């Protein structure tokens, strides 16, 4: 759980045991301990029951049930589920589309994270210099964070339109021919990445900015005396001291990209020829369009494992390069 704690930017994460301390310091009147303890226990259960019942039914149980379903052939309509052992997993690993979407999903995650974080970092550095109108820039760049992805996907589909779209116009302006992004096997995935980067920059930028504000100014002042260049400043001071934020954003963005659905389902529906299909969309298609429930459950379980592994690996790697 160390990890969840570390995910949070500074200040949010309190040391466990705080609560005990508070209680120790409080000067409670002595009651008969057992009665009070019983009363508290009941209160505790009452207060937490709604949350734990819901978590149990809608979060924990699904993992178990997915595992169960993944051993069956079932179309969700028929009353009968047929036990087929590991067959769903076997056909999954023999399904070329599965490998294609796995590659797509990883490519999408890696490129989205790289571009998104890179652009967000450079923007936050500019904003940290407190330019005039900084809060306006910040407000504009942050705005996609709270917009409806369905509407976003629609306007971008229109921007990518090959005949009257803005991108054709932009490409023409620099003397190039714009591809038919959404209907082209090679360009559909990049088109999706552009939209995901567009909608994610603002959030990352704001978190980077918060991280930058936490770096004490006197470190830079000291460096200034030594005649350090801005680039060296960045490499030796800013980047290392920002690494907790970078790490947090890398993990959350990567996992977020693994779960991408809305924008892709509307813009390309995974096409053409699955060239922009990704994990969750394929899961959705199998479960709710083709009613291959068992197969989709196997997919869900592998997604779960994949996200666990990514989290653990990144957590482990972080020890090498994150400076707290």
């Amino acid at each position: 759980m160390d990890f969840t704690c570390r995910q949070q930017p500074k200040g949010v994460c309190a040391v466990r045991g705080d609560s005990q301390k508070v209680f120790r310091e409080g000067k409670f009147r002595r009651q008969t301990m057992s009665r009070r303890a019983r009363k508290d226990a009941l209160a505790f259960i009452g207060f937490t029951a709604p949350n734990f019942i819901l978590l149990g039914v809608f979060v924990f149980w699904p993992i178990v049930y997915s595992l169960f379903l993944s051993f069956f052939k079932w179309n969700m309509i028929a009353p009968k589920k047929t036990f087929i052992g590991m067959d769903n997993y076997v056909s999954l690993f023999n399904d070329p589309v599965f490998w294609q979407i796995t590659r797509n999903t990883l490519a999408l995650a890696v490129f989205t994270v790289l571009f998104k974080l890179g652009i967000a970092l450079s923007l936050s550095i500019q904003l940290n210099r407190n330019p005039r109108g900084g809060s306006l820039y910040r407000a504009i760049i942050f705005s996609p964070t709270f917009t409806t992805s369905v509407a976003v996907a629609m306007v971008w589909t229109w921007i990518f339109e090959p005949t009257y779209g803005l991108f054709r116009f932009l490409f023409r302006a620099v003397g190039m021919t714009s591809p038919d992004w959404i209907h082209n096997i090679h360009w559909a995935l990049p088109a999706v990445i552009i939209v995901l980067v567009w909608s994610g920059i603002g959030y990352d930028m704001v978190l980077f900015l918060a991280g930058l504000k936490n770096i004490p100014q006197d470190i830079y002042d000291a460096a200034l005396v030594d005649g350090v260049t801005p680039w060296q400043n960045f490499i030796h001071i800013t980047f290392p001291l920002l690494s907790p934020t970078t790490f947090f954003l890398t993990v959350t963005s990567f996992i977020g990209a693994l779960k991408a659905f809305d924008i892709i389902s509307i813009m390309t529906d995974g096409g053409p020829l699955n060239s922009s299909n990704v994990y969750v969309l394929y899961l959705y298609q199998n479960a709710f369009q083709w009613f291959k429930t068992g197969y989709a459950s196997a997919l869900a379980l592998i997604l779960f494992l994949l996200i666990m592994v990514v989290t653990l690996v990144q957590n482990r790697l972080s020890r090498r390069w994150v400076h707290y």
Partner: protein
Amino acid sequence: MKRYVLVLLIALLALSTTAVWAGAAAEKAPEGPVKIVYWRSLTGVAGEVQEELVARFNASQDKVIVESQFQGAYAEILQKLLAALAAGNLPDVVLLDSPFVALFAKDGALVSLDQFVKKDKTGFDLDDYIPGLIQDGYYDGSLYAMPVMRSTPLLYVNGDMLVEAGLPRRAPKTWDEFREFSKKVSKYNAAGEPIQLGAGFTMGQTSAHWYFQGAVYSFGGQVSDEQFNIHLTEEPAIKLATLWQDMVFKDKTAMPSNSHDDLLNRKVAMVFGSTGSMGNLLSRADFDVIPAFMPGQVQNLVPVGGSVLAMTSTDKFRQDAAWEFMKYMTSAEANSAIVIKTGYMPVSKSSMAYPETVAYFQANPVRKVAVDQLQFTRPQASVISLGKGTEILRQMIEKLLIANRDPKRVMEETSADLLKEYNDSFK
């Protein structure tokens, strides 16, 4: 102590009050008019005419009230129906893409209409329907669906564009001619970008496979037969696939097209379309649109498409109400309105002889093509009724026209995929 019980109660109450908001389709007692739910598909005039007929039906009598609910395109209505079956939350009457009758009838999701036909004493006559259009409403000898908005694939041609290119103002008769026309019509700018092309090949899951089926028929082949034998690797299918692919990649006179806007915006001179799109296209185009037969090659033959009405009611009273509604929707009066508004085909002899239909075809001879094509129809390929069938065929067309893959290989792969899907989900 009491207080915590109270907290718990409040928390539980907060959860359970939400359960009080009932959703749609709760059971209704059969006193007063019976309320039934109709799931419709299609938008534009084809959607409007359904709403209009539902309103007319509701106004015409006081025993049944129909609530019409839009469910999206054919493919979506299929998913929604599967979901509703799973959830036990079924509508009473549903507009189905014709090939899915078998799929649902097989699993017992549809109500057989035989009993209603038998006990109907209002002079209802099944023989009034045109045989070719009611034929695919049967499954295993029982009637499960009634024809309502039946269509055939047509070729829509921009006549002005053909004339500008020095061609006659008529649609190409064969696929060879189709290719020639496309070459003559295509124009490019200095950068080599196309300004206008001969043809747009329909993509998309709903109907791409339908035009492909029609074209395979015209080459003398078929996609699959009733025993689910797949014939894609045979010569007619391969020939056709090669022709379409060559037009896109070798001639560069055709392109994959995602909507009829490509015709309306003069990007292409010819597109495929349903007879049901006729009203829409003719009214929106600002040039001369010629609705024509799909090109023939060795024969003129097209798959019947469009939609049928099926009953999914689980309740006796609602079934009777649903039957009344279905009869109305397929009656001469209602069907004539559909024909006039949309261009769909008349489904019965009485509808064809209905005075308004007759007058309409006299005034608009160009639209008669739908009726003329009636004699060249046959049911769709069996594989369409597989859960993933249309998706596999869509992938096939994308492999041919977007990825430019070898037709023979593509057909082999597609056949294997269809066979696997058949074994997986249908057998």
